């Protein structure tokens, strides 16, 4: 073998090794990516055994070729849509008739369709239970859920004009002592909080203190907004708001994400530095 041929052979061998390593590394990544996509589309993921086809546990959902009764074994992901359904038989509205068989065990990605004496869920997908079972899958899903949460917070961080860490020194009704003229039962009942600034994480804050306007109302439209109290410490994601209909002008914190506990400061700081 000439030195040139030897060189070509060595190069080819090295290239093949790289390619095969890459493929080996790519397979789980693809699987994770697919799992992530399915988890993002599903509010309830569980392992279960198909008990019966063409059947239903929910009278409101007619039995058909697209329905199957499945006994739930373990919950892998629950976005707050059910309480304890492990061990219960529920109805799965299948993506494709005949895609499961009686006795088959699988991982079901679903969304709740009907609440009743029993539950009916709509299938997003199903697949064979991976090695490691539901426990291993739960860890992967938890990571995905955390990533989704971070994306939401990241979006809110990007939208905020000013982010400060600080402490509420006072909270009182917004707009002085005058009574409101009539408005709506959905009136936000604005309050304002003085926040003593400890650090500025984004934007330019006034030197020592910033005023944050927030809805004090627990009406259905506002009860999810943060309510601030004197002495409260944390991270405040502030958005400049001017809304004549809502009768407010200034920095507001309306989304439940607009307040983060102080122990999240480093995390928020990292998110402010992330590329959008």
């Amino acid at each position: 073998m000439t030195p040139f041929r030897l060189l070509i052979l060595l190069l080819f061998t090295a290239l093949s090794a790289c390619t095969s390593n890459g493929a080996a590394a790519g397979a789980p990544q693809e699987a994770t990516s697919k799992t992530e996509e399915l988890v993002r589309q599903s509010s309830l993921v569980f392992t279960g055994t198909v008990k019966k086809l063409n059947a239903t546990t929910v009278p409101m959902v007619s039995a058909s070729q697209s329905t199957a009764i499945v006994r739930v074994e373990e919950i892998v992901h629950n976005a707050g849509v059910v309480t304890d359904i492990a061990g219960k038989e529920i109805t799965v509205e299948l993506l494709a008739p005949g895609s499961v068989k009686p006795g088959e065990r699988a991982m079901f990605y679903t969304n709740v369709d009907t609440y009743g004496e029993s539950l009916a869920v709509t299938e997003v997908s199903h697949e064979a239970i991976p090695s490691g079972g539901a426990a291993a899958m739960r860890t992967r899903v938890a990571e995905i859920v955390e990533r989704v949460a971070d994306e939401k917070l990241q979006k809110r961080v990007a939208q905020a004009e000013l982010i400060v860490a600080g402490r509420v020194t006072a909270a009182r009704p917004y707009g002085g002592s005058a009574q409101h003229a009539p408005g709506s039962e959905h009136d936000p009942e604005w309050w304002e909080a003085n926040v003593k600034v400890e650090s500025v994480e984004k934007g330019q804050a006034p030197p020592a203190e910033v005023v944050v306007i927030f809805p004090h109302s627990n009406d259905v439209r506002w009860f999810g907004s943060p309510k601030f109290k004197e002495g409260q410490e944390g991270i405040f994601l502030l958005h400049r708001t001017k809304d004549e209909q809502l009768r407010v002008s200034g920095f507001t914190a309306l989304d439940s994400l607009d307040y983060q506990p102080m122990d999240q400061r480093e995390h928020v700081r990292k998110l402010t530095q992330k590329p959008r």
Partner: protein
Amino acid sequence: MRSTGTRAAWTPKVFLAASLILCTGCHHVRVVNMVPRTRSGETCQDSEPSITVNPENHEQIAASAFTWDNLCNAPGSPGVPANWWQLGMTGSSAPIYVSLDGGKKWHLRKSVPSTAGATTPTGDITLFFSRTRAGSTNVLYTGILHAPDYSMNVLRTQDFRLSTPMTLLDTRTNNVDQPHTQATTVPQGPDAGKDRLYVGFNNGFSGVNPQSATVDVALDADSATPAFNLTQLETRSTGAAGQDGFANVPAVSRDGTVYIVYYGWRGFSGGGVSTDVVVARDDNWGSGATPFTALVDSDAHPGIRVVQGVVLPFGYVRPGTAGRQQPQYRRGSRE
């Protein structure tokens, strides 16, 4: 006739108990927990309920509230404080309550247009069956404040039993509130079979429209693209109040008589709203050139003031008592 006026008097906690009282010949009272077993862990603010019975089949009942498509609590841990993702809608359709056995058992089916991630499933929601048959049920109309924008949407479904988004018929925006929905079907004459739909609502609170008592009317609501006409009910001054009250409640008879009762606000001082209770009527389905003017009061304005000058506490009251560390609040009258 259904009384929608009681809806606001219910508290969220009462609805969490979720009791429906059925009186059969008044021999006995049955109390039913409407929240199905599979949602027994929910801790949402499931408030301001509304209910309607199919006039052609009393076994079919639909009910609504501010009902999320999730349980508003941590998995397996009812009662823990909600966090960000639990407050948001999981999907883009909010549920209504459905019973097919006269209210003994209830299911939740997702048919109300909402928005994934919205912190409320819907704002104010009321629903009503017409007498128009659609298969084995009747057409259901619904008025909502759509989340998260709180525009008023008027909706229709041919089958309230399905988890299929209702059809949007009409949208009103700009500080609108409390759609009160009523419907019936013309029994005879040239318009026989047409659905008449009336949605009383507050059209422009907080200074957008000083005479905000309004009704939205469709004279053929079950047609493919029904036309809606707004009638401003209020013609009197609302003075310093700058708007009318919120409950504008219609009641419709199958002979074409339509009543609407509303709170005509006349002024505001001291945390109270001076209010007239006004009854307006139309004798031909609200279809003429000057609808809802059949009743004229002594001041020559349409609408009889059956109560005048009553003061309703409303809004945000902050006594100026010196020395108090915390202001006091009186929750506004929800009428």
